[in-house]
């Protein structure tokens, strides 16, 4: 279809404000008389709290109040589950244990909040927090995932019989039978450790209670303002219309900014109401390491069975997932992992059981990728080992196993994170693989360049990793589109935005329908007073679910415009066209009426309105997909490794991506670049080091290394478009895609570069140090 606005590299509507320091972030909200909060956090990862003495802090000059769990009285209770427990799946075990506003009896991870100080300034609040005295009785710390599940392990939650938080078995076909037929069976243990999301903006909350108007306004760095509003209202005994939650400009989300609730998110509004003064809390970076959720920790025992030609006959993958101290996010991460172990491959036999363990680590909830990178790492590593065993080329073994274009919709026969059947909707996977290979010049590199460079003594390696990304899941999102009398269009939707460019991509969707400049469409996201139905920005669903709601609403508005214009211009609708904010008769362009005039006519101040009509040129519409749309991509890279220093230099990095209809390639590419940089962090730089006491050894940006501009390679992106049949726009999500295959790719490339060394990369993240140890361990 010929599109005028969708698919174009449109510059962003939101940029001028962001570029000039005029965009409002949560920490920019300021009120006279505003108070500031600081939290006292536990030094211990696992300890009984015997006594909390806040008397000195209360007397500290400038302190207005100090609260402990005790002081909260009947308002103290755990948060609701953010993702509801699994309903229908057979034999599932799930123990829901949710985080608490302030620790009462027992600390379950280092950094858990014990008390909150409210003072005239942040400086004073922090000083006073140091005056609080807590008596702890340290307990044995639960960290190792296997030991955590052993019968004799100390328990994170005393009321449970063990640290088993959840267990789920899923299968397809008959793995054991397939294994008997196999020529090659490979079994390995794979360990993946935790990293941080590390958005540049830490979390923050400002709450203002209007006692006379009985109205609470909350500015929150959340990805899901509507659920937060609904939850807060329920908790605070207010009606939903008495609470407004605003997620203004957010400095990056990447997953952890969606929770129900973070302790601070519950407490600050509660305190603001109690004290009847505006209260602000802004997390600092150290707190972000200790109090914002993290992800990735898993241990896999995986077995792959293949025939002589490298065809996968079956996979068995049993793993343990670390949920940390609580499990508010249900089974999302481990189910995602399970769903991605089969990747985009045609696998007939699959058997997988995961167990989720409570540990004394910080809570795990999805971080960009959300379980998917682990699944892809597992399958891709096993394919690499199989290729080596069979003496087969890395690209070839993948090509032989990919799902073929005619096989869609493809049933994987297990359930996904939404507990809906995992169905891959559409795609042309081999074409995407070929595109990546062609872009990087695979053949030529392997046949000519690599042998030549190796002769020169260079350790160069190439890798290719295909992956799927399940995206755009339900339940639904909505949008309201209004043509204003100025001729401009206003759009409101319920999701939040953390840099994904929704102010522009949604405007493009509207412009396509209504024929108006993208810059004349004003989009609001994340303000419950503008739109109050919806769930949030997660699972790479913004462009899919909210995007299609915007599309649906604008199509209806288009219909209304045409109907009215046809009356005004005295021409049938079919002869009208919408362009440049005007409706014209196609053959007589000088006969036209502007959208602004039509909007005024549709909302008359006098006279009668025909029965059954609604005023204005406005529509609210919703979109809920039948099931998630699945994107597909392939990354490839060429690296050079220095076997002395273990530094890995990336010479080329290419991405071939099919995420359905592209709304804005500029924004899409930006999403991919960012995802890859996080993926490289997950591969070689970013590991959260917990010591044996459950303390983080690298809880600062000086010690936890984010990828900087000098480590990042230039990324070449190629697009293919297989529109999703599941929605009218044909979009699939892409927000997390960039990060997903990178660790798998990185391992393969380094392994290929150091081809003459006998070692196996079976862990992530690595580091130069880690790689050095691995190589020396193997040669010892």
């Amino acid at each position, binding site marked *: 279809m010929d599109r005028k606005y969708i698919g174009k590299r449109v510059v962003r509507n939101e940029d001028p404000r962001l570029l000039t320091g005029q965009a409002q*972030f949560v*920490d920019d909200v*300021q009120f006279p008389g505003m108070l500031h909060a600081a939290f006292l956090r536990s030094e211990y990862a696992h300890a009984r709290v015997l006594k909390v003495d806040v008397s000195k802090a209360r007397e500290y000059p400038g302190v207005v109040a100090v609260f402990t769990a005790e002081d909260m009285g009947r308002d103290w209770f755990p948060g609701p589950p953010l993702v509801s427990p699994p309903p229908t799946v057979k034999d599932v075990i799930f123990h829901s244990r949710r985080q608490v506003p302030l620790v009462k009896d027992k600390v379950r991870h280092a950094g858990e909040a014990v008390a909150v100080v409210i003072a005239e300034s942040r400086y004073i609040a922090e000083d006073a927090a140091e005056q609080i005295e807590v008596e702890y009785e340290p307990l044995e710390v639960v960290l190792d995932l296997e030991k955590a599940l052993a019968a004799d392990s100390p328990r994170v939650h005393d009321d449970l019989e063990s640290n088993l938080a959840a267990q789920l078995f899923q299968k397809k076909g008959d793995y054991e039978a397939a294994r008997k037929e196999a020529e090659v069976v490979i079994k390995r243990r794979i360990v993946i450790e935790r990293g941080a999301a590390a958005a540049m903006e830490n979390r923050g909350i400002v709450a203002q209670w209007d006692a006379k108007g009985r109205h609470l306004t909350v500015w929150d760095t959340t990805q899901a303002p509507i659920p937060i509003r609904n939850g807060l209202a329920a908790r605070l005994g207010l009606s939903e219309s008495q609470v407004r939650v605003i997620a203004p*400009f957010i400095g990056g989300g990447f997953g952890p900014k969606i929770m129900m609730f973070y302790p601070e998110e519950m407490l600050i509004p509660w305190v603001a109401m109690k004290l009847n003064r505006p209260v602000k809390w802004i997390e600092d970076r150290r707190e972000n390491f200790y109090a914002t959720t993290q992800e990735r920790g898993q241990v896999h025992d995986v077995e792959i069975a293949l025939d002589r030609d490298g065809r996968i006959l079956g996979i068995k993958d049993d793993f343990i997932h670390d949920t940390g101290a609580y499990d508010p996010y249900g089974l999302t991460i481990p189910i995602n992992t399970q769903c991605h172990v089969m990747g985009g491959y045609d696998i007939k036999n699959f058997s997988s059981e995961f167990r989720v363990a409570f540990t004394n680590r910080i809570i795990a909830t999805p971080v960009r990728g959300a379980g998917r990178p682990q699944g892809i790492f597992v399958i891709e590593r096993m394919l690499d080992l199989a290729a080596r065993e069979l003496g087969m080329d890395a690209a070839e073994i993948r090509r032989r196993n990919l799902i073929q274009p005619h096989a869609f919709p493809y049933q994987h026969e297990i359930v996904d994170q939404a507990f809906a059947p995992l169905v891959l909707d559409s795609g042309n996977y081999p074409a995407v693989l070929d595109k990546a290979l062609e872009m990087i010049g695979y053949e030529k590199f392997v046949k000519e360049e690599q042998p030549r460079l190796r002769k020169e003594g260079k350790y160069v390696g190439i890798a290719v990793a295909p992956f799927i990304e399940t995206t755009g899941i339900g339940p639904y999102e909505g949008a309201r589109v209004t043509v204003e009398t100025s001729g401009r269009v206003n759009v409101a939707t319920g999701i939040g935005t953390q840099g994904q460019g929704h102010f522009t991509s949604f405007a493009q969707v509207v412009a396509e329908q209504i024929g108006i400049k993208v810059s004349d469409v004003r989009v609001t996201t994340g303000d419950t007073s503008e739109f109050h139905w919806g769930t949030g920005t997660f699972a790479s669903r913004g462009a899919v679910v909210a995007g299609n709601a915007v599309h649906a609403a604008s199509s209806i508005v288009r219909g209304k415009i045409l109907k009215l214009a046809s009356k005004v211009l005295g021409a049938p609708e079919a002869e009208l066209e919408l362009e440049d904010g005007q409706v014209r008769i196609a053959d007589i362009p000088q006969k036209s009426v502007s959208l602004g005039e039509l909007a005024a006519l549709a909302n008359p101040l006098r006279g009668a309105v025909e029965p059954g009509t609604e005023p204005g040129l406005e529509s609210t519409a919703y979109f809920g997909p039948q099931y998630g749309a699945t994107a597909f991509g392939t990354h490839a890279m060429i690296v050079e490794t220095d076997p002395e220093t273990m530094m890995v230099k990336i010479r080329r990095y290419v991405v071939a991506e099919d995420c359905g209809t592209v709304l804005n390639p500029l924004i899409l*590419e930006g999403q991919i*670049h960012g995802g890859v940089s996080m993926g490289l962090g997950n591969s070689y730089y970013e590991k959260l080091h917990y010591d044996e006491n459950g303390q983080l050894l690298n809880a600062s940006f000086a010690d936890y290394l984010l990828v900087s*501009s*000098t480590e990042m390679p230039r990324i070449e992106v190629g697009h293919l478009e297989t529109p999703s049949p599941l929605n009218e726009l044909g979009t699939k999500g892409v927000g997390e895609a960039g990060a997903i295959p990178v660790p798998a790719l990185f391992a393969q490339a380094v392994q290929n570069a150091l081809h003459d060394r006998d070692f196996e990369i079976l862990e992530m993240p690595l580091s130069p140090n880690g790689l050095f140890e691995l190589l020396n361990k193997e040669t010892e």
Partner: protein
Amino acid sequence: MQTFQRSVTVNGERFERTVEPRLLLSDFLRHELGLTGTHVGCEHGICGACSVLFDGQPARSCLMFAAQAHEHEIVTVEGLGTIENLHPVQQAFREAHGLQCGFCTPGILTTVTAFLERNPNPDENEIREAISGNLCRCTGYQHIVDAVKLAAKKLQAQE
């Protein structure tokens, strides 16, 4: 607590304020002067989000005290251009999509503005080196690098 009388010029305007010795320059700019364009991402000198121009040189405002700015000149992102009239560097960032969430952006804009004055015609490696002290979690830096290249062109065309 002891306080100091301090005067500092920010974006061409002179401010006289009484400050506590421990007040960070970043907090002073953001909360005393209301110039919230300067962001803080770490408050320990690594991320660069808080970078401002201090007598024309990029400096991390989270690592300085407000008191140290006495009789100095500071330029924050608000001092570069306006919504109606973007600075060429800001314009280039818009055209090249050099920002996503925009949180790191003010620090990068101030850093890059000073860098391009020193080196009006940088190559890709020099650009990457110049912004290596500014962390960005969203962009993977590529569009930032492109934006700096474009900004260099725009500034040269202006001359």
